[in-house]
């Protein structure tokens, strides 16, 4: 990925991606947005940013879900443009990014059909970046093995299903286990792919993916306290490509409460700093917020280097964070509950 060779296939798209990234809302834009009284004000302020008149054709009164959909639609159009113009290996890289949305869509469809919802009602709820051809064909199957053989073997996610084909019935608990097993396989495959590309891409992406893996391990551990997930099952869900592997993961598998998880994180400098400021008191940031902030800082740092693919991943994640921020502010404005309106994650 030396400079002169990278620009042949990826230079234009990198320049374009950096142009998109310059349109991400700055702190001054957020200050304007939190002062809005109504959603119409919000729409007016967003017109002055890179979003432009994306809400122009929506009938009033505006709903927060409409704003969410339209924000996502703009992001999807930009990403599809980048994907359509890319060649190997950038196209595989961008495909890998979409697999996480595909996993979410598959789980959504399976859960929906289990609850007897019609497929036509579920398809619009799926994330557009994760759509694949066999989406409409997902029907309720008794076991994951049947589902795999019928539908999923032709999707790009087929190799990730190796660990979770089982003869147990699909039920609520199992679906979450399937989701986490799929995500673990996906994350490890993505990590290997980035490592194999090598160079600056590997440096940047492996850092980000290692944090993602560790974050999932910690969140799975904390969320599994008080449920009927056994420690062995929990240990099987931890992605192995992070910094916590292998000692931290073994310690997490044995943990019984929040304090023990915090003690495990003490061994790793970045994560202990995240646990420091977090708490459940009013006015404290939650642990998830601290994780989001750290993720945002890693993604912003990806833009400091040139000639690598990490800018595309980071741009997508930052844009998603921005969408979450705008939706949070819109909800606070719409419900007139402004106490926590400043709890968005600032990006720049």
């Amino acid at each position, binding site marked *: 990925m030396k*400079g002169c060779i990278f620009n042949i296939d990826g230079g234009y798209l990198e*320049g*374009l991606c*950096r*142009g*998109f*990234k310059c*349109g991400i809302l700055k702190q001054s834009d957020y200050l304007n947005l939190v002062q809005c009284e109504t959603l119409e004000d919000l729409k007016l302020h967003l017109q002055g940013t890179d979003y432009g008149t994306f809400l122009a054709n929506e009938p009033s009164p505006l709903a927060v879900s409409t704003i969410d959909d339209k924000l996502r639609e703009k992001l999807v159009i930009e990403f599809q443009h980048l994907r359509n113009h890319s060649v190997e290996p950038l196209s595989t890289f961008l495909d890998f990014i979409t697999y996480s949305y595909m996993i979410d869509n598959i789980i959504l469809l399976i859960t929906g059909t289990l609850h007897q919802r019609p497929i036509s009602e579920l398809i619009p709820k799926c994330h557009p970046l994760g759509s694949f051809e066999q989406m409409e064909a997902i029907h309720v199957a008794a076991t994951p093995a049947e589902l795999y053989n019928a539908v999923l073997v032709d999707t790009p996610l087929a190799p990730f299903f190796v660990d979770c084909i089982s003869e147990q019935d699909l039920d609520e608990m199992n679906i979450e286990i399937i989701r986490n097993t799929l995500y673990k396989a996906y994350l490890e495959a993505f990590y290997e792919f980035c490592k194999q590309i090598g160079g600056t891409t590997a440096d940047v992406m492996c850092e980000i993916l290692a944090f993602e893996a560790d974050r999932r391990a910690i969140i799975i551990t904390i969320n599994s306290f008080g449920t009927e997930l056994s420690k062995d099952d929990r240990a099987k869900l931890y992605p192995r490509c992070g910094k916590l592997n292998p000692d931290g993961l073994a310690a997490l598998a044995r943990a019984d409460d929040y304090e023990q998880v915090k003690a495990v994180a003490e061994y790793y400098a970045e994560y202990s700093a995240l646990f420091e400021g977090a708490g459940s008191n009013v006015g404290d940031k939650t642990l998830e917020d601290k994780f989001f902030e750290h993720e945002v800082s890693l993604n912003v740092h990806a833009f400091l280097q*040139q000639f690598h693919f990490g800018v595309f991943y980071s741009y997508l994640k930052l844009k998603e964070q921005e969408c979450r921020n705008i939706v949070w502010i819109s909800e606070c404005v719409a419900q007139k509950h402004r106490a926590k309106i400043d709890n968005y994650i600032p990006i720049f």
Partner: protein
Amino acid sequence: MRYFLTYLLVLLVAIVIPIFSMYYLLNGKVAFSVVGAAMGIHTTGVSIVGGGVKAPRIKTKNLISVIFCEAVAIYGLITAIVLSGMLEKYTEPLTDLTIKQQNWMAGYVMFGAGLAVGLVNLFCGIAVGIVGSGAALSDAANAALSKWATSNLRKYILEIKLYSTGPSGLDLHPEICDNQC
């Protein structure tokens, strides 16, 4: 992989000609200089085009980088013309061994001169291209970075230093050639 094969081919073509014609031709240097300049212009141009989609103001200012790269190619051409001015046809019969050896030495020296200047210009062109690409993208991100007082000026100074290494290759070799030719 295909890029390496292409460059290898260019390299072979550029080298083979001087070997055959080493004592009356030295145009490997032009090939190297032009390849370096072309790669530099491509690297910078792609970044200007990519960055210019969302920030059209960078187009005019960053053409300077492209001009620098082109100057590298012109250097190669000038040194080729200068060195080819030193060529003379040897018409007398080759009876004396020492004269024949001197002629061969002159040929080899000119080949070395050409190769040195060519390779220097190749890497200079590539380096100027990479710096220009970084300058274009940073200008697109933050207009303040394109003011003379800030780092962009230092980038241009780096480019000028890089491409003055090109003609410094030129300076060495006329002395060597004068000894032998």
